[in-house]
């Protein structure tokens, strides 16, 4: 049976194009208090004078049909494998959604008295404890809203630590980052006032120890930001050595925990010498990506760094849970309130549902699935590094590009085979990168279908390159002209366009 076919789908205009004056999709209870005259309420000059011109007017049915129709244009995890490398698109359980929607959590105001919020505080406290155990690091803050936010937090903590240790403004301004790192790493380091120096990778796709030593020699190294397994899907086997080098040079080691799905229950950053790490709960701990968030990027660190974690922290005294605001060395707040609590609930539910064995089992299954793909494609696609992949496997378009077929084309052609493409052109250290991460949530049969599809595409690239170059052929719209889109950006609907498309 073919994995996919084409079927009829509804097209749908913009919500503004569907709007009709006089339509209503809402009803409020009648105002039940004595009215205050408009002018006493608010002087005219402070009131809107545009009558919200342009904001849509629709019935509830219009809204439901609009968003239901456009939703059908999305690929999503519940349809199947979503192998975006580095994104860990695993199954998002409905059970976690149900937990997050319990009225006792959803209706709790963040500024409600501590005594009346004990359940929520316990949730955060327990999640902190589990994340601490999983990473092998003592301190945890749940405040960061996503991975990059966690990076910013962690790097700022390094900065604060060094300033304190070295007294005043530490002279250490260099943050070392491998060329394979995710873009958020240098961006976060920069935001924290560091100068980014790039470390080369070896031909095996590992951090170049020699180069690291060189860079550390200068004495102005604040730290290293490392992803492990790195973005090539390879475990940095010299990790303890790497940490030692940085520590000996007086710096600290930050680990980007985006790839923790390869390690949970198997190895702990804290045991390797890592000082601070962020986790992506929306990756490793299965909180839904929601088409681009919300995420949650808790920051975990050594006891030494704990004083610098953001304020407040959730602490426990006896059977009471408290918010600790008295943290003089803290870098301060990185977000209002306590982070994305709704994601904390889901992540805790996920950890408790997996349990001790389940967490490790998931790691094993994720790595095994990646191995199957490596095993099935290595003879056809260029695998730039020999090392066996962990939870994700990196290929390039080297062989196919000889015929003019590039990574982008292979990705688009995968769509015709019923798959969401892998992550493409990342990491940047290889040309035409294809980073494939199946996660543990994919069954053997679909892994085999994926391997087969990739092999078919390789064959097509030789026998019928045009077919691949013009893919996808099965979607309601074809490849979009992104260049023009960026040259003449249209970033919002305007009534003008309405008449245009109506």
């Amino acid at each position, binding site marked *: 049976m073919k994995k996919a076919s084409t079927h009829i789908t509804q097209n749908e205009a913009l919500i503004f194009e569907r709007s009709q004056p006089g339509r209503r999709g809402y009803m409020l209870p009648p105002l*039940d208090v004595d009215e205050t005259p408009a002018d006493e309420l608010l002087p005219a000059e402070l009131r809107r004078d545009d009558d919200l011109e342009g904001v849509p007017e629709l019935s509830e049915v219009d809204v439901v049909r609009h968003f239901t129709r456009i939703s059908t244009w999305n690929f999503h995890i519940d349809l199947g494998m979503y192998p975006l490398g580095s994104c860990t698109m695993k199954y998002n359980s409905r059970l976690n959604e149900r937990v997050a929607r319990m009225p006792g959590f959803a209706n709790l105001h963040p500024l409600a008295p501590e005594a009346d919020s004990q359940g929520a505080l316990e949730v955060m406290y327990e999640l902190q404890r589990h994340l601490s155990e999983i990473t092998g690091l003592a301190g945890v803050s749940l405040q960061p809203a996503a991975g990059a936010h966690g990076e910013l937090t962690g790097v700022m903590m390094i900065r604060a630590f060094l300033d304190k240790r070295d007294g005043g403004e530490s002279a250490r301004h260099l943050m070392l980052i491998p060329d394979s790192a995710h873009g958020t790493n240098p961006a976060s380091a920069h935001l924290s006032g560091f100068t980014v120096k790039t470390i080369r990778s070896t031909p095996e796709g590992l951090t170049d120890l020699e180069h690291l030593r060189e860079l550390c020699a200068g004495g102005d190294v604040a730290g290293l930001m490392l992803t492990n397994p790195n973005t090539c899907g390879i475990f940095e086997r010299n990790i303890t050595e790497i940490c030692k080098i940085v520590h000996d040079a007086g710096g600290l080691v930050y680990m980007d925990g985006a790839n923790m799905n390869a390690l949970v229950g198997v190895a702990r950053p804290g045991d390797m010498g890592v000082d601070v790490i962020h986790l992506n709960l929306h990756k490793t701990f299965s909180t839904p990506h929601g088409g681009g968030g919300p995420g949650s990027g808790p920051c975990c660190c050594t006891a030494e760094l704990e004083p610098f974690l953001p304020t407040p922290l959730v602490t426990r005294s006896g059977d009471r849970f408290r918010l600790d605001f008295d943290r003089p060395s803290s870098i301060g707040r990185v977000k209002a309130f306590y982070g994305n609590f709704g994601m904390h609930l889901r992540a805790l539910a996920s950890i408790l549902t997996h349990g001790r064995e389940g967490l490790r089992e998931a790691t094993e299954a994720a790595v095994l699935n990646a191995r199957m793909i490596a095993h099935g494609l290595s003879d056809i696609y260029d695998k730039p590094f020999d090392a066996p992949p962990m939870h994700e496997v990196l290929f390039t378009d080297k062989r196919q590009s000889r015929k003019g077929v590039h990574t982008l084309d292979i990705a688009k052609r995968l769509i015709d085979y019923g798959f969401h493409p892998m992550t493409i052109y990342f990491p940047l250290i290889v040309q035409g990168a294809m980073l494939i991460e199946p996660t543990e949530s994919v069954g053997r049969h679909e892994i085999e279908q994926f391997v087969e599809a990739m092999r078919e595409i390789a064959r097509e690239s030789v026998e019928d390159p045009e077919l691949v170059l013009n893919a996808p052929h099965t979607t309601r719209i074809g490849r979009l002209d992104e260049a023009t889109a960026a040259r003449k950006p249209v970033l919002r609907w305007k009534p003008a366009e309405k008449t245009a498309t109506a």
Partner: protein
Amino acid sequence: MRYIPNSPEERQEMLSEVGLSQAVDLFDSIPADARLARPLDVPDALSEIELLARFESLAARNHAAGRPSFLGAGAYSHYSPTIVDALIQRSEFFTAYTPYQPEVSQGTLQAIFEFQTLVCQLTGMDVANASMYDGSTALAEAVLMAERVTRRRRVIVSAAVHPEYLEVARTYVAHAGVELLSAAFDEATGRTNLEDIEGLDETVAAVVVQSPNFFGCVEDVRAAAERAHAVGALLVVAVTESASLGMLRSPGACGADIVIAEGQSFGVPVSCGGPYVGLFATSEKYARQLPGRLVGVAHDKQGRRGFVLTLATREQHIRREKATSNICTNEGLIALAATIYMTTMGRRGLQEVAEQCAQKAHYAARQIAAVEGYELPYSAPFFNEFVVRAPVAADELLPRLADAHNITGGLALSRYFPGRPNDILVCVTEVNRRSEIDALVAGLRKVQSSKFKVQS
């Protein structure tokens, strides 16, 4: 584990297919000394029945979630039409990733484009991004953007901005070489003192005001814009209660250069502080200085309209350390919820919600002011939040209200301003029934008289 498709038997077969004999072999590349030699110290797996019971009992201990509340201060309890949560639960939306592959992500992309447009319409600005983490981080990014745009390094922030927003801004700029100065507010009006803003000169990148401000007072945004523009600085306007945009003159119409807002009021549960969604809008000319993602119109070869992530050269995955921000994952699904909320309520609904909030808040304010011993210290117009000065310490009064009357009466300002023990920030929205307001007033009266009893 019931979420893992492949059974242990299947996994064993797969292992041998790839030439391994057991699962541990998968981790050969991890040196022994870096491995965890013991099982994790986490509890055994729970069944659904056990897990739900566990969380139900935790939820039950959040007593505050179950009672009438007048808390606002950055998180607002508004009614969210049932379809908002129903639609965002379509797995097409909530289990998708950032729309990197437009051909199979048009649903998400079109929704974001609609979100950007709605944000522009409500704020009165030209362009808006695909969302920020929340209002507080959006403000911090706005300060950094102002620095990029003006190449000036001093930013003046009103003292009436949400204290937690201010703290976040401080953290963000700590190492960016930006200096934050404070503009005092007038103790009589409750508004930022715009007449003489200390330190406002040609070295200032931006003036930041919040309206309605932290004390609920509506600022004179137009005046703020004039003062800022007079010295070539930008005006950054922050909005924590976005429901006010249904009634208040839009910041854009008042001359704001950057508008950031917390979008939680648009159908998103208070959920103990998150996830929320940050709105970020500015004028056309600064579009390329925006942080975060942007969705724009694009066409395919046949000229069919579609949407794509665009102007990516601003972003970290291309620009790395030179990016306008480090943000990657934003608040997509919450932005979608806000979009569905705004379209369901629509033009008239957003106006009516704002009207009801203002009406109920003013009713409450009148009633409370009439209670002996209580006063409203500020004279400026307000929307749905106002400060009440009580005759007793707020942190004695509020717990008594909670225990004796099962009402969360508001926020003790002492949480942020230790010097103001008796002040309470009260917020009223369309969900507060008159009976709740009257119960609050009755409760305040009781607490108050009992106090006099104690004294006499």
